[in-house]
């Protein structure tokens, strides 16, 4: 009996028991839906994270004091007992390394910011004059700090969009004074809006010169230095030369941690991928439960159709014909469930896209292929046992069954 013949018989049998077929397929449909949607969710998260990283600027390196084994965003708080990063370090990198296009030293904290009757706890970011080019973050009005502002520790400030609105409302803030942790600063610029990234409002910030920030936060060093390399290709070279330079400034001791943006991204991707696989693995369990449902229904079907099996054998079916017939039936059942599951998932993704247009929702095509292949494999795996049982029936005894 040809496979095509078997498929015809299988469809006829499955069609004859629509409720049962539907319920059995539901197990596979749900499993496939869960696997694909969770894998796609992971891919969506991955895309979202890398979009956010791209918005941070590009070709960035972050220098942190102390040697750390783990790679990642890490803790940004200075580690004691190591050489601290100083403004002079930042200046040396800026002046001496041609592979570097910009350097932004960073000292930050949360501080109380007041204007008129309004006061607000805001992120206070002390940085250097190259910050706008390093982070791709320009001003919309006024100007950013000049090198002179940094050197002379001028009390000038640039406001993030959110801080500007909260403190000044409709007023023009340029030239006005704000009080940052009790010290007056003159507003010289307003930064362009960057929105919310990974749950943090990037516009709720006040920028002040790094030298002024060191005084405000009583810090004699930098928390970290952000360096922008000329191009993606120069990132590794820049990292090596920064390390060498800082080593020579520290009597040969290499105790800085340099993390590139790409490394951070790949670390985050690693986490997202691990979560995706864990979730997909859990979803795969539901697919296996669906497979057990198929085995169950096939066993029931075989005991109901014992006489048919006996008849087929009497009329000349070999054991392998019976085996094929029931195997094809369970594979058709699971494959059909898998395909319906794919359709349901695709429909759900389109629905989600129109509900959340902001999210970059993607369907992972390999997950589709994998889910359908996996459901067919489940049909074979869970179909073999019932089909073998059917194939082994003795024709005489099977015919006598009522």
């Amino acid at each position, binding site marked *: 009996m040809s496979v095509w013949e078997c498929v015809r018989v299988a469809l006829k049998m499955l069609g*004859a028991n629509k409720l049962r077929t539907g319920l059995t397929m539901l197990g596979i449909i749900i499993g496939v839906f869960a696997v694909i949607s969770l894998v796609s969710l992971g891919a969506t998260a991955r895309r979202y994270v890398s979009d956010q990283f791209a918005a941070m600027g590009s070709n960035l390196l972050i220098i942190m004091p102390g040697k750390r084994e783990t790679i990642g965003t890490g803790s940004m708080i200075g580690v004691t007992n190591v050489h601290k990063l100083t403004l002079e370090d930042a200046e040396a990198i800026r002046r001496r390394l041609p592979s570097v296009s910009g350097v932004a030293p960073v000292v930050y904290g949360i501080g109380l910011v007041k204007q008129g009757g309004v006061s607000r706890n805001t992120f206070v970011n002390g940085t250097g004059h190259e910050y706008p080019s390093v982070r791709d973050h320009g001003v919309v009005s006024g100007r950013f700090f000049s090198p002179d502002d940094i050197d002379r520790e001028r009390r000038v400030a640039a406001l993030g969009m959110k801080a500007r609105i909260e403190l000044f409302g409709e007023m023009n803030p340029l030239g006005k004074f704000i009080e940052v942790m009790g010290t007056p600063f003159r507003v010289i610029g307003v930064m362009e809006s960057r929105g919310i990234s990974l749950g943090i409002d990037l516009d709720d910030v006040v920028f002040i010169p790094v030298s002024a920030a060191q005084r405000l936060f009583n810090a004699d060093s930098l928390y970290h230095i952000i360096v922008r390399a000329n191009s993606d290709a120069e990132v590794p070279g820049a990292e090596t030369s920064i390390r060498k330079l800082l080593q020579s400034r520290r009597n040969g001791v290499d105790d800085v941690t340099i993390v590139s943006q790409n490394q951070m991204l790949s670390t985050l991707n690693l986490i997202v991928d691990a979560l995706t696989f864990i979730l997909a693995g859990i979803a795969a369990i539901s697919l296996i439960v669906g497979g057990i449902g198929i085995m169950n229904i096939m066993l029931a079907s075989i005991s109901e159709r014992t006489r048919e099996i006996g008849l087929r054998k009497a009329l*000349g079916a070999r054991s392998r014909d019976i085996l094929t017939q029931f195997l094809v039936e369970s594979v058709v059942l699971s494959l059909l469930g898998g395909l319906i599951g794919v359709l349901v998932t695709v429909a759900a993704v389109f629905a989600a896209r129109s509900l959340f247009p902001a999210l970059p929702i993607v369907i992972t095509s390999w997950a589709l292929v994998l889910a359908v292949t996996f459901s067919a494999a489940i049909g074979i795996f869970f179909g073999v046992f019932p089909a073998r049982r059917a194939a082994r029936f003795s024709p005489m005894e099977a015919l006598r069954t009522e």
Partner: protein
Amino acid sequence: MSPEPAPPSRETPWIIRTEKIQRVFRSHDVATIALADATIAVESGEMLAIMGPSGSGKSTLMAILGCLDRPTAGSYWFAGREVTRLSDDELSSVRNRMVGFVFQSFILLQRSSALENVELPQVYAGVPPRARREKAKKLLASVGLGHRLGHRPNELSGGELQRVAIARALVNDPKLLLADEPTGNLDRKSGSEIMDIFRMLNRERGMTEVIVTHNAEVAARCGRIIVIQDGRTQSGGEKADG
């Protein structure tokens, strides 16, 4: 008892020859002897009835004759081959091409039409769909069901069902038609019509037929009667005059 028969050569007219067939069923530690000693010989073109009370072993004998089961001891030559030594797949092939079965309870696929039911043995013989459709149509017409091709079993009467079953049994041109109480589930008139078909097939087409029955009227319409009792063939096991 007959003398030791020599192993039949291909030239013998015998289509069936069994020698002291035994069939013992074992479940757990209990052995049940269904057939103790069945020795029969059937010539090609014969119409034979096997009679016996229920429990006499006639169903077991029929299963063995139809290659649905193997004897635990003894020999069975079918169409010149010692079938007791064949593999399961070879037995399937013998059933498919050389034996046509007719059962008491018809046993048709309920979800398939009369035509599809008749085609079924050809499916396992690997006949292409168009050819098997043609053959099945012809056979259904020959048993008077040319107008019922697309009907399902639940739309047919008992007599019609058995005629579908006969068409199915004939579709691969078997050497032997094996019927187990073919009139057992039919009224007198339909039963008689079915027996007419068996007679016609035997007379006009030379079909060898073995009919298991306990109905004396059915047996009387066969050329020869073998009686089986307590698993032993009693009389007429071999044709009286070769």
